[in-house]
């Protein structure tokens, strides 16, 4: 289970990098992130973590409600 958590964390991390790179970085005339890109990456990753957290909470609630409906 601990190993699974590790894997889940790494998957979250890797998805986060991909998403924020994809959404924020579009100028390839330089090999350094611009200030605008840096700021975007920072907000994007903060928002994505809050997003995952909220979706996770709702997911657990729905899952619990569904389990109760099934009468277990």
């Amino acid at each position, binding site marked *: 289970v601990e190993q699974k958590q590790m894997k*889940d964390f790494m*998957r979250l991390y890797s*998805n986060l990098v991909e*998403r924020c790179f994809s*959404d*924020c970085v579009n100028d390839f005339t330089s090999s350094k992130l611009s200030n605008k890109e840096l700021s*975007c990456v*920072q*907000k*994007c990753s*903060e*928002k*994505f973590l*809050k*997003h*995952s957290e*909220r*979706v*996770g909470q*709702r*997911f657990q609630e*729905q*899952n619990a409600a*569904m*389990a109760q409906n*099934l009468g*277990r």
Partner: protein
Amino acid sequence: MSFLGFGGGQPQLSSTQKIQAAEAELDLITDMFNKLVDNCHQKCINKQYNEGGLDKTESNCLDRCVAKYFETNVKVGENMQQFGQGFQPGRQ
């Protein structure tokens, strides 16, 4: 461990089979959660990233998105049971 209501008609599984079924179900839940995160991000999150927090519109959208994803999940399961009796996706 009966997230999708599977398992009801399988009274005599060995314990190894039960563990495998539980593992398969956990994988499915993880997979579904990851898809949920992706889909609701795509549908609800403003990609301008002017701020790092979730605003009211985004938060409300996310809550409804998760609820609708679960409802879709249940409906698809019902459709598959009705339609898919003996259905084979055609894999080898």
